[in-house]
């Protein structure tokens, strides 16, 4: 099993307050890795480190993140973000048509051939299961989609630049149960093609879809391993408390 991302001794502090302390782990390719932990423990910060967004905030970062062999600090921010996509908690489709949302990034990167754009749109919408629902109204404003559809559109939009890794920061916490399970199914499909890292507050979700689970508490990586063993037989007392709901 190859590793898509290797994180070594990663530490982050915001104005002298440590948010992440000395985190090292390897995220395997074509797997779903879940990141769990109590609120404020540094999960979002961890994702921001992986797509370089952290560099634009006033945070001090040390350690090294390698993306399939290259140190990400050596990559241009825009190149890094084409390889590592990020989907946010609140879906924010751009206020334009579904089609334009989907062609936005490819056109920025210089693809103007209509056929090619159309192919990308169809392919990515199909991947997210949105194609059948919207294929007759691609000209419709994306703002008018339902919450779950918006989030799937945002996932599809992140895929239009063909990333290697897809990061998701609590993508379902604003959605109902049905939309959530649609997204879970789609993530399971996507892992054939992409490496997925998902932050979630929903432990059930982590147990259902992820292959690997990382438990972060108070900025420390407490435990990292196969999801099955983390949930059934955690090695650390802290993990067990968290999973059984004693805190967080």
């Amino acid at each position, binding site marked *: 099993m190859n590793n898509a991302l290797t994180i070594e001794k990663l530490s982050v502090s915001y104005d002298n307050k440590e948010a992440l302390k000395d985190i090292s782990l390897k995220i395997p390719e074509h797997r779903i890795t879940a990141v769990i932990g109590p609120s404020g423990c540094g999960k979002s910060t961890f994702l921001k480190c992986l*797509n370089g*967004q952290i560099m*634009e905030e006033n945070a001090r970062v040390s350690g090294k993140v390698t993306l399939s062999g290259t140190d990400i600090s050596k990559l241009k*921010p*825009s*190149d*890094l*973000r*084409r390889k590592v*996509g*990020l*989907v*946010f908690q609140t879906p*924010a489709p*751009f*206020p*334009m048509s579904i089609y334009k949302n989907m062609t*936005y*990034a490819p056109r*920025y*990167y210089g693809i103007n051939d209509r056929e090619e754009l159309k192919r990308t749109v169809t392919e990515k919408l199909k991947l997210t299961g949105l194609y059948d629902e919207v294929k007759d109204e691609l000209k419709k*404003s994306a703002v008018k989609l339902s919450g779950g559809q918006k989030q799937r559109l*945002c996932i599809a*939009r*992140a895929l*239009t*630049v063909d990333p290697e890794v897809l990061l998701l920061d609590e993508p379902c916490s604003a959605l109902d149960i049905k939309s959530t399970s649609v997204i879970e199914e789609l993530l399971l499909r996507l892992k054939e093609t992409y490496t997925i890292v998902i932050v979630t507050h929903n432990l059930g979700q982590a147990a259902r879809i992820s292959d690997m689970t990382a438990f972060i508490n108070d900025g420390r990586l407490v435990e990292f391993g196969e999801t099955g063993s983390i949930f059934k037989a955690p090695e650390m007392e802290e993990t067990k408390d968290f999973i059984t709901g004693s805190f967080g």
Partner: protein
Amino acid sequence: MRYLQDRIFSFLICAFTALSFVSLLFVIYFIVREAMPLFSEVSPGEFIFGDRWMPIGYTGEPSFGIFNFIAATAAVSFLAIIIALFISIGAASFLCLCTGEGTREGIYSVIDLLAGIPSVVYGFIGIVVLLRIFFRVGVHTGSCVLAASILLSIMLLPVLISSCCESMLRARDEYLLPIKALGVSEWYGLATVIIPASWKNILLAVIPAVGRAMGETMAVMMVIGNANLFPSLLGKSETIPAVIALEMGTAVSGSTHYHALYGAGLVLMVMLFVINTAISILRRRLSRI
């Protein structure tokens, strides 16, 4: 006790609302009443489309045509709004992407100072600075429509900048991170997502700005030359508020001239109403996208 307080409070609010509504109706009624007698002597068509304004018949027949004033008012306001919008969106872009909260507040307070300057002072600055420049480059006496538009646009800036900035900041907070997460540069995102998303709210701020622009009297009057000519960029002209301000003092109360000035005021009001309605329709169109 609580109940009584609530009742009194809501009564006061209703009373004030009614008061402002009634006084608005009263103003309209008064203007219409004073303007009406004009139309028994001059037909509305002649009044609006005629370009000869000769309120007192020193030489030949008196004549009341305000077409040039209407055109000048529309031209000066339109140009001023366009210039001010360009500058405001530029300034707001800068404030959105290049400054932090602290700097932005500082710059805001400086811009707000601009709003407190009386319009005579703007007019004065217009004369000593703008007109001089126009004179240097060869405009006869320097007074012209373009000078008035530029001056007026500066007067519109404080309101427009702060409202552009407010709506763009809102769009920025919503879209900037997703834009950047696609690897797209923030300036490209600003131009293609954030500004288009803000148009609707920017137009909302344009409505009072149009009112301000079309009603502005003193500063415009001081630099536009006040000649009854069809407006051209570098030529003199005269706006409706300027005509009213310049001539109301000398018009004999009850004369046709007096009623014609009220008629001009009525036309100004109708123009404002039409333009505001047009902007509202445009906004509705935008929000359907």
